[in-house]
């Protein structure tokens, strides 16, 4: 049985277990249900959990273990001279796996023919729609049949184990149902475990990402010193030609400057526009205007950034070049910092406005009333009471928007270009950390050269920057909560 069949079986039996448990508890209680420790549904769930959970755990554990065991088998059956060449080993293993798949397709007669050498395995496999790149070597055949043997054995073992677990769980739980059984506790604990599991997945993934970044970044720093990376002013990685040991210069500063400069212009656009629209939405707009306008603004957040990117490339960039940069004599490229900043600023308007709007609305009405009752106008109330009360929260919103801007890639590629350049001229081409990460990781690569590993160093640096901003934002937002309580 395949895993899908097993899953179906688990689902079916669990449901059956639920019905069974429910039924037994009802029968046990007779008419006076008050004698039960929990409602019948809990007894049903009790049997369901006992049936499904052990079987599922076994299925998952064995499914994870299977590829490891299979690979181990293959290696054990490969000859010494193949094992001696570690760089080719993974290629060999996948070759054996292909042969094993071919052996399964062939009929018994064909297998016999292959064994005695009447036909080549390659031609037989080709007839079954599995073309191989080269002739099958004898040791591959041996390893492949061992693989098939182990894999089939494992499949049977999984089937047996799962079915046994199902049967045991079902019967065990069913027998254990008594009126005083605390069925609720098991259900509650299972739900708790489920919830903890879900949160751990998110946390563990984050940790995993950071660790993998860190590991590769450390490898990079063993080739290029952190000082020349973080204080270098020239970005010139030189693409790694195969076999050449020449490494370029990995100066982080031009990328950092480009990131900061573009984000600065983005914030220059997004903060005033976002804040003013939030003020209008929260303080002035009637509920009807608000119910229409707010979702419209939030649509901006739903536009894919690549769309912003070509909007910048085809519309904003040429406009800025023809009407501002060229007349001022400051540059003649459609790719420039101003364009990227403008378009990125528009993209993050909804982040600023939506969050700030929520923050303004959270300021208690009594403060507004207090100010209005003293004869303050609405804008005075806004400036002198609401804004100061909401300021920490607004700062938090702005910082969150900023980390969004710093991480943005697509708009920068299309609007500001890919030239690493540290210049004060906002009409110059410039680029950011994220763009260079993409640059270094596209193409035919080997993950051992500094040219590619630098991407991980850039990645972890970026991660630290945005994490710092997020932590700062959260700290401020938390402080803000206590402000007027």
């Amino acid at each position, binding site marked *: 049985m395949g895993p899908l069949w097993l899953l179906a079986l688990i689902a079916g039996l669990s449901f059956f277990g639920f019905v069974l448990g429910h039924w037994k508890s009802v029968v046990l209680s007779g008419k006076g249900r008050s004698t039960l420790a929990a409602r019948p549904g809990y007894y049903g769930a009790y049997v369901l959990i006992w049936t499904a959970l052990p079987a599922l755990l076994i299925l998952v554990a064995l499914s994870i273990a299977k590829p490891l065991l299979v690979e181990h088998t293959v290696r054990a059956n490969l000859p010494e001279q193949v094992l001696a060449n570690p760089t080719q080993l993974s290629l060999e293993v996948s070759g054996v796996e292909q042969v094993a798949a071919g052996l399964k397709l062939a009929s018994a007669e064909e297998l016999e023919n292959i064994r005695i050498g009447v036909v080549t395995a390659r031609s037989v496999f080709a007839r079954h729609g599995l073309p191989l790149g080269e002739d099958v070597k004898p040791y591959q055949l041996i390893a492949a049949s061992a693989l098939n043997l182990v894999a089939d054995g494992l499949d049977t073992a999984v089937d047996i184990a799962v079915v046994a677990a199902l049967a045991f769980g079902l019967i065990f739980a069913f027998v254990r149902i008594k009126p005083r059984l605390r069925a609720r506790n098991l259900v509650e604990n299972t739900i708790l475990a489920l919830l903890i599991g879900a949160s751990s997945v998110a946390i563990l993934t984050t940790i995993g990402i950071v660790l993998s970044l860190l590991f590769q970044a450390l490898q990079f720093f063993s080739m290029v010193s952190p000082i020349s990376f973080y204080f270098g002013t020239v970005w010139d990685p030189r693409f790694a030609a195969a076999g050449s040991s020449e490494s370029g210069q990995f100066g982080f500063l031009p990328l950092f400057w480009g990131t900061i400069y573009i984000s600065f212009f983005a914030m220059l656009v997004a903060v005033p526009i976002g804040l003013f629209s939030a003020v209008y939405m929260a303080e002035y707009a009637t509920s009807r205007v608000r119910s229409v306008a707010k979702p419209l603004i939030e649509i901006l957040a739903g536009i894919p950034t690549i769309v912003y990117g070509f909007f910048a490339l085809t519309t904003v960039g040429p406009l800025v070049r023809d009407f501002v940069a060229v007349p001022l004599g400051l540059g003649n490229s459609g790719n420039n910092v101003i364009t990227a900043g403008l378009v990125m600023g528009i993209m993050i308007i909804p982040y600023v406005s939506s969050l700030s709007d929520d923050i303004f609305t959270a300021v208690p009405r009594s403060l507004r009333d207090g100010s209005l009752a003293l*004869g303050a106008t609405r804008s005075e109330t806004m400036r002198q009471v609401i804004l100061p009360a909401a300021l920490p929260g607004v700062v938090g919103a702005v910082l969150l928007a900023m980390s969004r801007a710093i991480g943005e890639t697509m708009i920068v590629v299309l609007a500001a270009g890919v030239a690493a350049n540290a210049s004060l001229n906002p009409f110059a081409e410039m680029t950011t950390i994220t763009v260079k990460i993409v640059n270094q990781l596209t193409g035919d690569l080997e993950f051992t050269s500094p040219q590619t590993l630098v991407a991980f160093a850039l990645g972890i640096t970026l991660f630290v920057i945005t994490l710092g901003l997020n932590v700062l934002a959260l700290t401020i937002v938390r402080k803000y909560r206590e402000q007027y309580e």
Partner: protein
Amino acid sequence: MSAVQSVTPFETVRTPDPASRPTKIHTANVKVTYGQKQALHGVSIDIAEKAVTAFIGPSGCGKSTFLRCINRMNDSIAGARVEGTIKLDDQNIYDPDLDVVELRARVGMVFQKPNPFPKSIFDNVAYGPRIHGLARSKADLEEIVVTSLQKASLFNEVKDRLAEPGTGLSGGQQQRLCIARAIAVSPEVILMDEPCSALDPIATAKVEELIDELRANFTIVIVTHSMQQAARVSQRTAFFHLGHLIEEGPTDHVFTNPLEQRTQDYITGRFG
């Protein structure tokens, strides 16, 4: 502001003041509707100058709504409509020519829940004077703040920590800070919407004492759920019920010898 003179379904029972005080606020046939719901059905009352007038009545009787008409705080509620006449010193406050900012400078308000701004104690009191440009110099402003705090009997408790946030004070102190804030603009009338309902008995006693002192300089209208409070602090009492003004008269008269059955029932605790 239509001058519809509809006939009220019943007459408010009125007992004139033995010590006749001049009228500060004159209202005639005030009706308020929120959307479809009518909250006030034609209220007419004259509020005496430099005295405390208490509005009593069960929840939802319209007393707070009426109070909020006097400084036009109902303007900011969507769907609220006010009809009738409300005159402050013979000036119609719903006149389109009247500046609502100026009106609210003359008619201050203290709310049910203390609502100090999240600013320093000093800035809380200085807020109104700054907005209206009442102080010509920094020293001037300081003087206004100190006097207002003194008038609100709060100065001695906070004089060493004027720079600390007003939100850090106790509930009763916060409410007196709000009163000081209202006084700082030198209003003529102070409206108080259940100013003690969020305070403990000791803080309540202090605020009540303060109200009694303020009466010398201000016209005060107070909405309260506590009949004892109305009896203690007010000179005149008005009883509202279901959007009607049932009875109004000198406080001791209303409490000891109510002319209306419903007033009597409410005061003796038979409903409400």
